[in-house]
């Protein structure tokens, strides 16, 4: 029965124009991430080669090639931007559709007059959402690997594949978090439009507002996969900086940078701590959504 609910949800998503459009954008951006990485690499190497020629002619010492010490996965650093941007929006919409479709169509009344418990229903929805988002990320992972192989002429070693896998698992949980926000608003809102706008509002706050407040309004902290120190020049930000460890988008960005080796490696225990707020919030939201479904009056339609 859980699988029946999940399968129906996957069929719905497959036939949803909105989902397909955002999925296509996400995959396109993933493919571009490798290409952009290659472009940056190519440009810097070109500048480096010209500099080498110039320095050689002047008889000056030649510095080391900056890319010789750069891990190959760093070429995919843009992925850590696309997931919180497009991936999280996609997840919010997936979560919204998962819960709203049954309410808006009136099918919920038919569902709950069947011998199916609400816990099975919500587990089915979680399963369908997880499979859908895992599918999106799997496609993204394949594209990323291909871009490393084809565009950057680099076959990832086993360790790199493992790092990519870890990155995509963390990304999956991060996206699930937003899917759960989409679900929560889709259950509680009386109006379909308000439900999606409110959920996207939460995405906006978590992605742009919280990171900037907790880092003293440094704009690079909201998306750029390069860690920026906290600016505590004002008393307000000295206080809000303490909330930085629970800023999920910032923690996601930092753990991704660590896994993809955009930044110098940090101890595994520290990276593990960074995922705690992400996993913790996702778990909390899952419990809240389960509770909301259990208590919701599905006999009433939408306004």
């Amino acid at each position: 029965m859980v699988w029946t609910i999940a399968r129906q949800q996957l069929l719905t998503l497959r036939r949803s124009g909105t989902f397909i459009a955002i999925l296509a954008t996400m995959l396109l951006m993933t493919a571009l991430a490798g290409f952009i990485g290659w472009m940056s690499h190519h440009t810097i190497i070109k500048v480096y080669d010209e500099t080498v020629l110039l320095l050689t002619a002047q008889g000056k010492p030649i510095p080391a090639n900056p890319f010789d010490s750069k891990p190959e996965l760093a070429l995919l650093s843009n992925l850590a931007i696309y997931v919180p941007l497009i991936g999280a929006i996609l997840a919010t919409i997936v979560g919204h559709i998962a819960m709203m479709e049954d309410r808006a169509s009136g099918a919920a009344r038919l569902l709950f007059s069947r011998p199916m418990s609400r816990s099975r229903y919500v587990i089915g929805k979680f399963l369908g959402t997880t499979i859908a988002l895992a599918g999106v990320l799997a496609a993204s992972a394949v594209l990323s690997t291909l871009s490393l192989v084809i565009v950057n002429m680099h076959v990832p070693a086993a360790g790199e594949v493992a790092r990519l896998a870890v990155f995509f698992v963390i990304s999956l949980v991060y996206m699930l978090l937003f899917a759960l926000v989409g679900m929560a608003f889709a259950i509680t809102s009386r109006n379909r439009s308000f439900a999606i706008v409110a959920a996207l509002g939460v995405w906006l706050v978590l992605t742009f507002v919280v990171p900037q407040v907790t880092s003293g309004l440094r704009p690079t902290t909201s998306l750029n996969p390069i860690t920026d120190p906290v600016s505590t020049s004002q008393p307000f930000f000295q206080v809000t900086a303490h909330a930085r460890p629970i800023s999920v988008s910032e923690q996601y960005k930092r753990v991704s940078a660590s896994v993809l080796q955009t930044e110098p490696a940090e101890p595994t225990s520290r990276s593990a701590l960074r995922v705690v707020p992400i996993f913790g919030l996702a778990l909390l939201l899952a419990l809240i959504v389960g509770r909301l479904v259990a208590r919701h009056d599905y006999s009433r339609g939408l306004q």
Partner: protein
Amino acid sequence: MANPSPLDSAAIELDGLRHRYDTDDVLRGIDLSIPRGEVFGFLGHNGSGKTTTVNILTTLIRPTAGSARVCGLDVEREPMHVRQLIGYLPSDVRMYDHMTALENLEFFARLSGVERPRAAAIETLEYLDCADLADRRVGTFSTGMRQRVGIAQAVLHKPVVLFLDEPTAGLASCGVRHLRETIQRLNSELGMTIFMNTHQLSEVAKVCTSIGVLNHGELIYTDSIENTTARFPDEASLEDIYVRVEAGA
């Protein structure tokens, strides 16, 4: 067909059933017993509490007080068992628009625990003379088509009791006639007890074996159609009887 338990219990029993939405008493203590095999017409004006009664009987909401039983099973204590015995067609039946009729029915058959869901879906569509709708998306259907597929989803697991909430709403006259014939077939051929909320008094007279009249959450009248017409010999139609019953409430 699902096995009701106990076998000799009434199809529907309401005992002091009450329901309150916020401060509004929607149902004010209803007592009702409907034997198996009846086609029961539940009458009342808008807001009288008919849909709330069906929502309780289909386990969608819990009563504030009193009890409701379907085939002897309490809707609050044994909702899963009750759901195995019932079929339900809401007033504005909507299924998944992007799915075909067959996909919708197969989905609901799986949820009902039907063993061969696809075969059951096809069989039901054929039984209801709408096999031609099987491969068309529900989103393209007219109200009448939706209603036919809606009935198919309600009966494909062969329930003991079928709840229809305003089934004739929005239907053209030919749709109403088709629905009447379907109800009669389901009752006579499959032995389903049918509980129907409706405004269409002319249809009630043609298809129902007994009626109940609900007024502001109170059941003010219930009897068989035969006894009702005998009790009000001066009235020309059920509509006249209904008006007189409501006026006397």
